[in-house]
């Protein structure tokens, strides 16, 4: 993973890692785990990344991608979940995640159509990269045929991305903007009351981004809202490796999130798992 600290890093506590920052960047490394980490400043963020036990055992790349940037009173994030049945879901997940993160940081127009344009632009580079991947000469014929068929269809990933702006000297009210395709989880609380239903029943497994076609299964879903001042919000996003969180409405202690990430009760994670929580 990559991290950068602009101002200060506070402490690494026992059992959890905590940093106090004004500017912060994290990008998951798909070849390793990230224990639950907490940063605090204008936003309090907790994040963690883990690969499926099978991938850890075989030293394979995870198919999730998670990135977060906090810059003063603005926070951007991306969570992508590569589609295992597509060709090299880890590649789509990384390319899409990096592309969206860059777009969030440089874009000024946060609309469904501008996002859709970006998602189409990203296919050009992604298609080149996916096509350039080659198979080992030792790949059995039947597997080779299937993988080549998948490669022609492209690499796919589901995603959630967002931008949160706090009220500032320039903005009387803050703003949240979220976009997604797929069934990764996004949950939102306002003053301890879950208001996820505002996002609608719009999380569908068949919707995703393809390195070949851009958005498939439908257009990106977008949610945008002004934020009340002096009211506490909590946003949680996680991939389907952490479905145990679905039933948990109250804040989950760090230790408990780490227990879910370790998944010792099942001999490790059954699927890749990414977790991000932003509180402001």
């Amino acid at each position, binding site marked *: 993973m990559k991290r950068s600290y602009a101002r200060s890093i506070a402490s690494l506590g026992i059992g959890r890692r905590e940093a106090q920052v004004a500017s912060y960047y994290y990008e998951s490394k798909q070849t390793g785990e990230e224990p639950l980490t907490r940063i605090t400043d204008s936003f309090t963020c907790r994040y963690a990344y883990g690969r499926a*036990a*099978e*991938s850890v055992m*075989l030293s*394979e*790349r995870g*198919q999730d991608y998670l990135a977060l940037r906090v810059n003063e009173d603005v926070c951007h994030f991306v969570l992508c979940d590569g589609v*295992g*049945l597509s060709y*090299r879901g*880890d590649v789509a997940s990384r390319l899409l995640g990096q592309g969206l993160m860059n777009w969030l940081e440089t874009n000024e127009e946060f609309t469904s159509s501008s996002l859709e344009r970006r998602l189409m632009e990203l296919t050009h580079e992604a298609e080149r990269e996916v096509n350039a991947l080659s*198979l*080992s000469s030792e*790949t*059995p*014929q*039947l*597997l080779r*045929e*299937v*993988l080549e*068929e*998948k490669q022609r269809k492209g690499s796919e990933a589901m995603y959630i991305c967002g931008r949160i702006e706090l009220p500032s000297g320039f903005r009387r009210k803050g703003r949240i903007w979220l976009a997604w395709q797929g069934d990764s989880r996004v949950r939102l609380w306002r003053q301890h009351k879950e208001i996820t239903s505002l996002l609608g029943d719009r999380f569908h497994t*068949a919707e995703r981004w393809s390195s070949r076609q851009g958005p498939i299964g439908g257009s990106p879903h977008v949610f945008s809202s002004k934020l009340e001042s002096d009211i506490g919000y909590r946003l949680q996003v996680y991939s*389907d490796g952490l479905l145990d969180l679905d039933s948990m409405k109250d804040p989950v202690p760090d230790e408990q999130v780490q227990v879910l990430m370790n998944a010792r009760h099942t*001999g490790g994670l*059954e*699927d890749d798992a990414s977790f991000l929580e932003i509180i402001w």
Partner: protein
Amino acid sequence: MLLTMNYTIQASQRTPALIIYLIDISASMNMLMENRRRIDVVYEALSLAIRQMVFRSTKGNRLTPRYRIAILAYSDDVYDLLNGIKGIDEIAAIGSLPDLTPKRFSDSAKAFLQAEKILQSEIPNMQDCPAPLVCHMTDGVATGDDPEPIARRIMSMSVPDGNVLVENIFISDHLMSQPVSEPRRWKGILPDTSLEDEHARKLKMMSSVLPESYREMLVEADYQLSPGALMMLPGTCSELVSIGFQMSAATPVR
């Protein structure tokens, strides 16, 4: 008829699905269907199902053994074509399925008995796995003992995911009162569908209800089977035979 249970556990390397194919290789399998021998249509459909399993088992460039398979061909005897249960990765490494050569009779009871033995040995170690499935393909009346009591014993075996599923593909021109003109629009055989043939009615009693999770997989592949349809296919054309074998591999995967 047994109730449909969850059938939601995904086939994975840690929790692989077990599919046992029982393939009738009696002499009548030499008869023609769409200008090809029935046995060749079946071989092609089974090969396609194996390819589908490979498709659903890749992660990165690797084939994960999400499926375990046994293929029992039967005539007057039972022939274990893979010499036991093999992982989909092992089958892909071999490259092609063993030949299916028609012989004489059609003693399906012997094949179901052997499947029952396999299940008795495997099920204790499959408590976290998807419910196993027995896919039986035949083109005629069984010679030998009645297979139904054995099939019903198999259907009463279970793992937490659900009872063992039994599917029947019956290659026959005289099964349905109305021919299936558009396989992709076909709603399937429902519990109240009347069948023309006595043997078909017996096979219907030996067929599980299609789990909703399997049905969703088939809907994604553009087949429109109704909720509550049975796992029984009339093999009146090669496409229906192929749907039957695809159904057998429709275990949920991510």
